[in-house]
């Protein structure tokens, strides 16, 4: 009971931080900054899907269909965000690949695992790909660092670190949650860990977005 309670309030806190991030993005039009368009769209989508998900959970209704939608949206937006960061332009072929994988995820949701079941396959595939993109960005970061966007690079690396920590930590959770469906107490522990990781993710994202939106301008001597 305590674990459920803590997990629930950590999720609320995460949602609060996400709404703060969203507020900063909209207020300062952060989405206008180069490379941040898809990331900002991801935050907006997350917020729009999380709100009904929380309401449904509060009324004890199955909100797993929303998780299916979120998984596809998350994959498409974050993958596009990384493709633009890594290639510094839109790559048409990769956009088709992303769309194809998203289509496969949709098929999994409709025909294989079903929208009322947990979409562990799609989630695992999505997280492995996003994790790989995040690591590729780390390798690519040196050349990015040398380009003109040095100031924003530091905070982009924070966003990348947030994704890297969250996806690597939660990969095992989503991958193996299928095995724990029968034991609600173990599953609750798993969701608590996920809530902690999500909270860390939201804190780092909020910090990065804050720094991008409100840069400290140093005057030269």
């Amino acid at each position, binding site marked *: 009971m305590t674990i459920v309670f803590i997990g629930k309030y950590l999720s609320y806190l995460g949602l609060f931080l996400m709404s703060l991030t969203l507020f900063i993005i909209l207020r300062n039009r952060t989405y206008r900054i180069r490379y941040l368009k898809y990331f900002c769209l991801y935050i907006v989508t997350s917020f729009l899907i999380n709100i009904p998900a929380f309401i449904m959970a509060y009324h004890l209704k199955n909100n797993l269909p929303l998780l299916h939608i979120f998984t596809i949206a998350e994959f498409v937006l974050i993958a596009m965000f990384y493709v633009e960061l890594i290639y510094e332009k839109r790559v048409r072929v990769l956009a088709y690949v992303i769309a194809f994988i998203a289509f496969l995820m949709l098929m999994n949701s409709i025909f294989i695992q079903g929208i009322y079941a947990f979409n562990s396959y799609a989630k695992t595939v999505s997280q492995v790909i996003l994790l790989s993109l995040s690591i590729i960005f780390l390798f690519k970061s*040196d050349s990015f*660092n040398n380009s003109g966007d040095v100031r924003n690079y530091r905070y982009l690396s924070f966003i990348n670190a947030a994704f*890297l920590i969250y996806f*690597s*930590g939660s990969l*095992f959770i989503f991958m193996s949650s299928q095995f*724990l469906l029968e034991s609600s107490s*173990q599953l609750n522990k798993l969701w608590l*860990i996920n809530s902690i990781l999500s909270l860390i993710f939201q804190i780092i994202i909020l910090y990065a977005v804050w720094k991008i939106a409100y840069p400290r301008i140093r005057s030269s001597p």
Partner: protein
Amino acid sequence: MEDSLPADQIFPLILMGVLIMTAMALALIAYFNYSRRRILQAQQASQKIEIKYQEELIQNNIIIQEKERKRIAEDLHDEIGSKLNVMSLYLHQLKKTGQSIEKFDGIIADMGEALDKTISVSRNIAHELMPPTLDNFGLIPAISELLESINATGQIEIILQNRSEVKKLKDKWSEINLYRVLQEIITNSIKYGKGCSVKLQIDYKDSQLNIEYKDDGPGYDPLADSNKHGMGLGNISNRLKMINAEWTNASKLKSGTHYLIKYIDQL
């Protein structure tokens, strides 16, 4: 399902997986952060070396420039100046002979005039290139002489408050550079602050020379990009750096030019 592990046995394995993956992610971030910092440090170090090299290059240029000025001034004075004087003497002797050829009188008079002008111009050029007062009597008399000649033009009024105990500094090279810096600053005041008045204060106490220069011209913003990269200020800065003098540029836009120079007089 009979073969699969029970949930309470699976959970520690998942937890371990989560922890290992998170730790690996953190280690990866830390490693890249560390290596990027090292690259940045290396880049900064090479930039510093490049800046130092550029400074040395500019300082060498200044040294060469000063040597050339001195050589040209000496050549002008010793070679051309003396020969012009000899020519002037011959011309006077020619006049003294009394054998006047009327049609050449006018030409000889014009030649004498042109010769006198040339002697005066060459002397001025030699003085400007390397003031003999600076060479023979030191910085303070050279500055006084410079100010007198500038005040005489009426373009600007410079008031000198000299509280210096000495006339000559220990190091001649420092004297030349301080003199050139003042020349540059005054030229700027004449150029940008037409008709303004200048207060120049010189103090020398316990081997420390303090120069304060203040004009009531339009002033400027030293932090503005156009001023930061200007040749004049860069030249002043390099010359003062070369002789280990400290300088403060307290100039402000619409509040006049204001410089403070501190120099420790030692060999």
